[in-house]
C-alpha cells in the first residue's frame, strides 16, 4: 500500500472517536440511576407532550439548503482557480469573472423573487 498523509486523518478520527466514546460510556457507569416518569418526559411546557416534533417544516429551510449547494460548488471552483492563479493569468481572471457574472444573475433573480426574505 502506498503511504499517503491522508491515512493519518483516518487514524486520528478513529482515535478521537474511541476517546470520546470512552468518556461518554464512563459517565453512564459513574452516574447514579434514579428513574421516574416525570424525568423521562419531554421538557416542553406543562401540557402533555405529543411525543413527536418531526413534522412539516417551513419551505424556507429547503430553499436555503438548495441555494447553499449551488453557491458552495461555486466556491469550490474558485479554490481551484485561486491555486492556479499565477499560471492562468488574465485568461483565468476573465473566465472566472464570466462564471461569477452568470451566477450573479442567478443571485439577483433569487433576491428579486424574495427567496431570502424571511419576513413573508
Amino acid at each position: 500500500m502506498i503511504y499517503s498523509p491522508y491515512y493519518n486523518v483516518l487514524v486520528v478520527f478513529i482515535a478521537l472517536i474511541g476517546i470520546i466514546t470512552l468518556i461518554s460510556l464512563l459517565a453512564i457507569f459513574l452516574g447514579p440511576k434514579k428513574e421516574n416518569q416525570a424525568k423521562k418526559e419531554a421538557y416542553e411546557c406543562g401540557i402533555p407532550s405529543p411525543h413527536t416534533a418531526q413534522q412539516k417544516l417551513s419551505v424556507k429551510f429547503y430553499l436555503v439548503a438548495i441555494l447553499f449547494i449551488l453557491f458552495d460548488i461555486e466556491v469550490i471552483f474558485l479554490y481551484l482557480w485561486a491555486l492556479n492563479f499565477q499560471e492562468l493569468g488574465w485568461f483565468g481572471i476573465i473566465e472566472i469573472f464570466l462564471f461569477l457574472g452568470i451566477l450573479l444573475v442567478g443571485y439577483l433573480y433569487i433576491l428579486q423573487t424574495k427567496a431570502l426574505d424571511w419576513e413573508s
Partner: protein
Amino acid sequence: MTIIFSIIVFAMVLIVGFHVAPLMTWVERRQCAFIQRRVGPNRVGIFGFTLFGLGQPIADAVKLLFKEDGNPSYVQPFFYFIAPLIPSVTGLAALMVIPFGAQDTFFGTVFSPQVLSVGAGFLLFFAMSSMSVYGVTLAGWSSNNKYSLLGGLRASAQMISYELGMGLSLIPIVLIYQTLDLQQIVYAQSHSYLFGFLPDWGIFRAPVSFFIFLITIFAETNRLPFDLAEGEAELIAGFLVEYGGMRWSLFFLGEYAMMFAFSGLISCLFLGGYSLPYLTHESLIHIVQPILGSFGSIAVFLIEFATLIVKMSIIMLIFVQVRFTVPRFRYDQLMKLGWVTILPLALINLFVTALVLGYSSFK
C-alpha cells in the same frame, strides 16, 4: 522515532483541546462578571489556594462526570446517543490541522508539530467544521422536542449560509500565498515584509477578508450574537434541551474546541501563526542554539507553541467580549446579513483582490 514524535504531538494537542472547554467556562464567567461589575466565581480552590477561582472548572468537570446520565423516553435512541460525539470529535480533529510550530529536526529525526499535514491544508479544516453541523442538527431532530427541533433547524440553516461567506473570504488568501498548506502560509508570512517594515501578515494584505472571516466564525461556532440555535430567551436551550450530564458537556467540549481551532486558523492565516513578528524560525534558532546547544530546537518549538497559544487566546477573549457586548440578532436579520451583506461583500473583496494581484503580477 517519527511515530513517537507524532504521538507526542497528538497527545499535546489533545490535552490542549480538552482543557480549553473547562478553562474557557471559567474565563467566560469571570470576564462576564467584570463587564457587569461583579466578582464572578472566585471561591473554589484546592487546599485553601483559590487562585482567582481556578478550581471551579475542575469541580465542574467532576460534577458533570458523576451526574446522572439522563435517558428521556421519547428520543430516537441511536441518533440521540451519537449526536454529542460528532461536534467533539470534529472539533478536536479540526485542532489537529493547526501547525503549532515549524518543521525541524530533533536529534536527527524530522519533527513536525502539525498532526495532519496534508496537501488540502485548511480545506480539511473546513470539512471538519462543516461536519460538526450534523451533531447539532441530529441532536435537534432526534430529541423529539419542539424547541430542540427549531434549534437544530436554525443551526443548520445558519451554518450553511455563513459557510459561503467563510469560503469566499479565504480565497484572497489563497490568491496571495498560492497554497492551501498552513505551514507554507505561515512561512510566507514570517519571511517577507510589506512596504519594508510591516510583517507580511494576512491581516495587512487582506483586511476585509479578516473581518468577514471573523464574523462568519461567530456564526459557524454558534456563538453570540449568532447563537440562535440555543437562544435561551426563546428556545430555552435549543438543541440542548433534552441533554444533561456528560453528554451535554460533550457539546460544549466540541464547541470550545472548534472555537479554539478557528482561533488557530485565523492566527495562521491572518496573524502570522506561530511566528513572532520580525523573528523568523531560522533567526530564533540562531539566537538560541549557542546557549542551549542541541536542545535549542526544542526551546524554539516551545517559544513558537507559546506564541501561537497567546495569539489564539487573544482571539478567544474577543469571542467572550463580543458575547457580552453585542445583543442577539433576530433570525431574519441573521439570514439577511449572511446572504445579502456578507456574500456580496466577500465577492467584491475577491474581485478587487484578483484585479489588484493580476495587475501587479501580469501587467
